[in-house]
């Protein structure tokens, strides 16, 4: 316990410095390619990485700065104005109108109009450094060098103001002012080796999980301030976390079709039965017993028994599926390698 107290102190110290370097916009903008995303009819058919739904608004993000918005259950899509062409990897609503998206080169984009227009809030672009510049880096900065240019991989907002973004090489950023300032909060978790953080997800009563490479797994019970390192059931990579249906329930899934379920906030785990052998990327809860997971090679797993066992389907195209959500009309929206598809839920 005292150990973790110490870390908080150190973390607070680091936080101040992270703030200073991360918020200087002019500094990173000159290393970014600020070409706006190109409007394209093919945006909805090319790589999409994430989708989020808030009331009637559906937003999905993907390759080349594509952000697509629908207000009619995915029938029609409008491509948003986005200031960059980088691959975006995740999107999350903070409220009805405030939305954040993250992506490669560490970009964080924000929309205050439910996804119509987007502004750049943060970036951590790659830049070529001279030997002299490298020599001036602190050890801390030096170990974080690979982060520059690498992708943020997931984003979660608690409300309009407080949110977190996680990503490659242990990138962990936080904001408390709706993204006006983004701070490096990686010291809040014990990820000294800088493993990729692939997913951040929350339940309803302040519980938040971060899962990543090499089985790293963290939980916060207070909405992201303090974090506990959990001993996961697995040493491979997790690509996703799904909280629910009960407050203490949580699913972990990832490489090689591995699925684990915990009913005690991740203290103990059981492995679910499934035939899947491809990486699983995202999931959605369907009622009190239904769970659907999607992943590489077009794998769709469905459980009717609260996640104890899963049956497997494979899409015809076999293209990777990266995210799945429920639409307001009850249908399911899936996005991935081949774009978007809307399907009726097979769970009765």
């Amino acid at each position, binding site marked *: 316990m005292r150990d973790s107290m110490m870390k908080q102190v150190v973390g607070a110290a680091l936080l101040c410095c992270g703030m200073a370097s991360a918020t200087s916009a002019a500094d990173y903008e000159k290393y970014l390619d600020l070409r706006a995303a190109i409007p394209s009819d093919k945006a909805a058919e090319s790589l999409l990485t994430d989708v989020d739904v808030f009331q009637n608004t559906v937003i999905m993000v993907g390759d080349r700065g594509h952000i697509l918005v629908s207000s009619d259950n995915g029938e029609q899509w409008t491509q948003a104005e986005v200031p960059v062409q980088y691959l975006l990897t995740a999107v999350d609503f903070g409220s009805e109108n405030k939305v954040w998206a993250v992506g490669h080169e560490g970009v964080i984009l924000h929309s205050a109009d439910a996804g119509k227009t987007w502004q750049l809030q943060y970036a951590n672009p790659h830049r070529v450094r001279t030997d002299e510049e490298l020599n001036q880096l602190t050890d801390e900065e030096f170990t974080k060098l690979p982060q520059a240019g690498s992708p943020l991989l997931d984003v979660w907002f608690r409300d309009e103001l407080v949110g977190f973004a996680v990503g490659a090489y242990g990138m962990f950023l936080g904001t408390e002012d709706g993204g006006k300032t983004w701070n490096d909060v990686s010291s809040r978790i014990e990820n000294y080796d800088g493993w*990729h953080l692939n997913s951040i997800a929350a339940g309803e009563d302040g519980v938040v999980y971060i899962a990543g490479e090499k089985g790293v797994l963290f939980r916060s019970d207070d909405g992201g301030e303090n974090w506990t390192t959990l001993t996961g059931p697995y040493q*491979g990579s997790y690509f996703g976390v799904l909280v629910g249906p009960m407050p203490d329930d949580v699913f972990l899934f990832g490489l090689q079709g591995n699925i684990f379920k915990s009913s005690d906030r991740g203290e103990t785990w059981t492995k679910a039965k499934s035939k899947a052998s*491809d*990486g699983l990327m995202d999931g959605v809860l369907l009622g009190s017993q239904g769970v659907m997971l999607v992943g590489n090679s077009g794998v769709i797993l469905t459980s009717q028994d609260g996640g104890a066992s899963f049956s497997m389907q*494979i899409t015809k195209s*076999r293209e990777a599926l990266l995210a799945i959500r429920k639409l307001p009309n009850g249908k399911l929206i899936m996005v991935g390698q081949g774009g978007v598809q809307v399907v009726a839920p097979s769970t009765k």
Partner: protein
Amino acid sequence: MSTNKPSFLEGPIFKLRPILLVLFAVLTAFFAFEASRVKLSTEFEKMVPLKHEFIQNLLKHKDELSLGNDIRIVVEARNGDIFSDEFLQVLRQVTDEIFYFDGVDKAKIQSLWTPNVRWMEVTEDGFRGGEIIPPTYDGSPDSLEQVQANVLRSGQVGRLVADDFQSAIVYVPLLDLSGGNQKLDYKKFSAALEKDIREKFQSDTINIRIVGFAKKIGDLIEGATGVALFFLIAIGITFVLLFIDSKCIRSTFIVILCSVIAVIWQVGILTLLGKGIDPYSMLVPFLIFAIGVSHGVQLINEFAVESQRVNMKLEAAKLTFRALYIPALLALISDAIGFMTLWTIEIHVIQDLAISAALGVFALILTNLLMIPVLLSYAGVSKMALNAMDKKLHSKHVIWSKVARFATPKAATVSVIIAAIGAGAGLYISKDLKIGDLDAGAPELWPDSRYNLDDKYVNDNYSVSADVLVVMVETPDYACTESAAMQKMDRFMWHMENVPGVQSALSVVTVSKRVITGFNEGNWKWASLTRVQDIINNSVQTVPAGLVNTDCSLAPIIVFLDDHKAETLDRAVAAVKEFADAENDPEVAEFILASGNAGVEAATNATIEHAQNMMKVLVYGVVSILCLITFRSIRAVICIIVPLALTSILCQALMTILGIGVKVATLPVIALGVGIGVDYGIYIYSRLKGFMEDGMELEDAYFETLKVTGKAVCFTGLTLAIGVGTWIFSDIKFQANMGVLLTFMFLWNMVGAIWLLPALANFLIRGKIKPKA
């Protein structure tokens, strides 16, 4: 006509006729020997516009790009799917069999059975992989299930395995055309594929399909050779018709013989010049034969007429020669010059067509214009023929007297109005005339040919498109995977993918993104081109051959298209140019057009579009000048040329209606049609003028003209049409297109000469030609 003075040639020719005959016999024997050694040539380079910028760029990089000279053998399970032992055994036998073919790149053959095709998956410890059909395979249900699992995780679905699992491909790269010491013999290779693969393995349960350039060329050669049979059929039909018409076996035989001799000379001279015959110039023997017959008909017709007046064969022959040598010579020379205008189109096969057709026509001047009268001077014509001619000359000519009314002022007015409407409608329709090829699949072959059906099957069931535009990206040496160049390529690819008609684009950038995704545990959120040079370098260590050259100064981008229609090609080419104009930077990367079948076709289309108007101006210009020199009258030129122009316009309208584009095969048709079509006009006009100079009124003069030459003109049209008409049945689509259009042009030119020429004459020369004193 009998008032013509003997030419200075006439005396020597008929005096020396025995020597001439011997000389001709010797020459014919010599040329026949040469002709027997003629080669069929199907060189790729002859069919493309070598001087076009795209092709120049392509040839510059020819040795660095191995651009898919390969074949795909599809083994299809007629019932069930590929996961049965029986199917997999056949697939293995096909893989083994093709291994022993000459000319295949044995190490690079790919099938589910070859060790170079592997499955791979990301595990906690890194990568794991193996052969698709493991060495432990024993045909048991368990091992079949193992194969199925391996196929699924191999990423070969859509490549080596059909999307519906009903078929699998054996992919066979061929050693480069120019790489080995010996060029691949496509004919032999294709025949071997038929015999040792298709015939051997096709069964009630297995279907074999074969696609690829080598197979296409093989089928093309086979189909093209098939038209040789048509030549015999054309000779046969012509012989019968000619005999029915002339009622004289001797003169029929003479005409056919002399025309065949002209073909022998033409092919012989061609071989002497070191040229071969290709599927395009194969038309020439048909043309030469038909032109020979049509002039021969005029000659024996005249001979029969003259024989009515003098009963000496020699005298009749001399008179025949005297009457016809000017119009015949003029007609043949205008044919030859008309053909030579094709020389201006800088595509080898068309230029070869021009030379060989011109050669053939010059041969005809000797073998027909000279030899037929000489032979007739010995052989004469049969009594029956003379009787028939006698009857004809003294008959009432019911038909011709009706036709002659076309020259009356009233009919002429109507005719000219109809012609004007026809021309207007033709022009209106042909504004939709397209450049290039309009059907899917291999444009040389019929859409329902076996090759194109196989090709369609592959297109429908595998994720490969047959229509490929390759853009070459040139960079400084060792810089083709520099971040800056890769970024440009990445943006270029998306630029192209957004062009309507473009399906997707593939390059070293695609590979880099895939590999980076693989490095990151197969997580597609990483499928982006990094700007970190070290990571790029890692990701392109094992790039498939052909996506970068050896010194990394060239990286082709392969753009897959929906089809090869001209609009699709135009759009794609314009999009490349737009990007290149804005972004080309010699320090980083330059985007250069073009290779791939679509690149070659785009270049061909551009060349043809550029050439087609110039060619028309030239051919009409030349023919007009020749007519002007001969008849020394602008009015004569109009009378002769306007019917031809009407035919050309209607021919273009017909092309539009039939969906035939202007392409290598159809462009020569106008030149050939005009060059040969002018003959009718010249024969009719020269007679008409002669009779008017004898003091006849237009209607009477035209009636007399028809009596003497009308039947010969119709017969000419018919023989020409038969000669090329057999081509309609060719297995090769472009040959059939040439056949349709030429048949149309020859028949319509005939109609134009008989119907429109006198109508125009009514307005232009009525009362203008004064009787000679």
